């Protein structure tokens, strides 16, 4: 934890004239912060008999939990999968720039790479809290190399692997260390995947099914063995078929173990998913929808040619393809833009749209007590939004870490 300023621990700030997202609704309530956490003002009033040290007028804006992006490959010229001597700087640069998009926590994502790159890069990425320096790192999302050849998408063919030889040990040898890993995407139709899934989840790491040609039965079995996420639904998997819904069928499967639910990532940039498909997925299982960017290094840079892992990619507007092909390979739409697009495309409530980028990813990672909500006691990572859900200011641990130039305070 970065050291607090003296007196910051006890300083109470009250955000007034705002609507906050709490209990799945937008309430006309004030938000109270102390020591980097959300404070219960009723307890403060009756038990401590204290009032706020400072009041900040939010001009009628919406206060939502900070956005969480669980799939982002880089941005602003930084490629997380590129082996460098100073991966930390790249992470820091992205973390800092993400604040303008309202993202307060993220999972740097590594695409399919050879073992030596994992061994070089992974030890340099550490789970850390956000601060004025940038969004927090929740852990790495390892997308590949244990994925389907047919559905590899933009992932390099030569580095795909299977579990044949040594199952979990194979995985461990490939990655080197799982210390700061939060999510692993794999294809459950690979032989011995179920035992690997059990081993991974027993270590508290989330398993996601994706880049796969598995049928519904195999996907359900993966879930029964511990998988809880679907990587970018519809993309890099068999299309929905009414007699074999494939992975998409998990949204309405009745084979999910009781007390658990399946979350699914959606890239709502208007390109990776047709709005009608987005609506179908949302209506089938609204509580499981997690908005992700799957952003590539070109995020924030504009049109042109950039790298992604071992490949070259071409960016034109919001579309990015593997250079020379029409294969989509990630997006350059920031997460707040995805939230707005999701809201318009589905016509869902503002609360639902916001929860898809906050509460749901937090629930996926099992951190909803600290992140993803504005409940009393949780970390004070939040964003100030106008009614169109444009980010006006970003706060981490109660400190202002970014603000739009038009905002007065």
């Amino acid at each position, binding site marked *: 934890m970065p050291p607090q300023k003296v007196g910051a621990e006890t300083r109470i700030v009250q955000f007034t004239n705002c609507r906050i997202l709490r209990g799945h609704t937008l309430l006309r309530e004030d938000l109270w912060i102390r020591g980097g956490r959300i404070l219960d003002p009723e307890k403060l*009033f*009756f038990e401590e008999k204290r009032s706020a040290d400072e009041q900040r007028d939010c001009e009628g804006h919406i206060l939502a939990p900070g956005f969480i992006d669980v799939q982002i490959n880089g941005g602003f010229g930084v490629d997380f999968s590129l082996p460098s001597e100073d991966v930390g700087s790249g992470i820091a640069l992205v973390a800092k720039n993400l604040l303008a998009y309202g993202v307060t926590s993220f999972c740097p994502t590594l695409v399919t790479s050879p073992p030596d790159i994992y061994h070089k890069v992974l030890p340099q990425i550490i789970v850390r809290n956000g601060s004025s320096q940038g969004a927090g790192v929740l852990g790495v999302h390892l997308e590949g190399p244990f994925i389907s050849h047919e559905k590899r998408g933009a992932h390099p063919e030569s580095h795909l692997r299977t579990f044949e030889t040594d199952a979990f040990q194979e995985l461990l040898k490939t990655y080197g260390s799982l210390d700061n890993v939060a999510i692993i995407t794999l294809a459950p139709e690979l032989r011995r995947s179920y035992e690997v899934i059990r081993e991974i989840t027993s270590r508290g790491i989330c398993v996601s099914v994706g880049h796969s040609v598995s049928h519904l039965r195999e996907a359900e079995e993966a879930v029964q063995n511990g998988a809880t996420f679907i990587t970018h639904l519809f993309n890099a998997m068999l299309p929905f078929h009414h007699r074999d819904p494939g992975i998409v069928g998990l949204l309405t499967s009745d084979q999910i173990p009781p007390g658990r639910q399946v979350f699914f990532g959606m890239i709502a940039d208007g390109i990776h998913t047709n709005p009608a498909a987005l609506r179908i997925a949302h209506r089938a299982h609204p509580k499981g929808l997690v908005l992700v960017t799957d952003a590539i290094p070109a995020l924030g840079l504009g049109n042109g040619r950039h790298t992604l892992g071992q490949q070259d990619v071409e960016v034109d507007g919001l579309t990015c393809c593997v250079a020379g092909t029409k294969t989509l390979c990630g997006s350059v739409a920031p997460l707040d833009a995805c939230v707005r697009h999701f809201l318009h495309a589905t016509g869902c409530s503002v609360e639902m749209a916001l929860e898809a980028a906050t509460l749901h990813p937090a629930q996926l990672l099992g951190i909803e007590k600290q992140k993803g909500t504005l409940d009393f006691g949780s970390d004070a990572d939040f964003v100030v939004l106008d009614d169109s859900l444009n980010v006006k200011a970003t706060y981490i641990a109660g400190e202002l870490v970014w603000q739009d130039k038009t905002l007065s305070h």
Partner: protein
Amino acid sequence: MRLVILDNYDLASEWAAKYICNRIIQFKPGQDRYFTLGLPTGLPRNHPESYHSYMWNNFFKHIDIDPNNAHILDGNATDLQAECDAFEKKIEEAGGIDLFVGGIGPDGHIAFNEPGSSLVSRTRLKTLAMDTILANAKYFDGDLSKVPTMALTVGVGTVMDAREVMILITGAHKAFALYKAIEEGVNHMWTVSAFQQHPRTIFVCDEDATLELRVKTVKYFKGLMHVHNKLVDPLYSMKEEN
């Protein structure tokens, strides 16, 4: 007494709010001059429908009162009688209550001073009458077993000591109690009747609450509305003055 009759619940509430506002402004409170507002009390803390939560959500969180100036009887105190005595002492130390605002129960009680309460009673622990428990059931999902049966309450005498008393009564189910309180004699079975002997009482009610009163009474007081409405004419705003 003054009897102010408004058309409905919302208008009665608004009138009462404006009146209280004006009384505070006229008092000219300041650093060393506090306006002491009394409100009825009761219920244990930290219950979803606790009086503390109710007061926080409906009153305290909307205003900028210093928490040290908000005194609520603590139903969780170890020695309840001592808690009540201390409360009486706090009122005395604050210089007495300037305005006490209360409601009336269907059985004519003020605060939790159930029928039979002494008209000179002080703050104490009371066992609630069935009528009151039934009336409160709506705050506990209609489950009678969940409604608290005991409550700490200010006494009739405590309220009588206030310099001014305002009683709010709305709804037809309170009509009979209002009749008993103002058109019959002073009686400890209808404890609100004690205020007939208070020099400054004002009853604010809606049409429905007057259903059991004599037409003559209602006509008289309605005829005085032009006088009553002067009491809620907007005064200067204290913020602007400062």
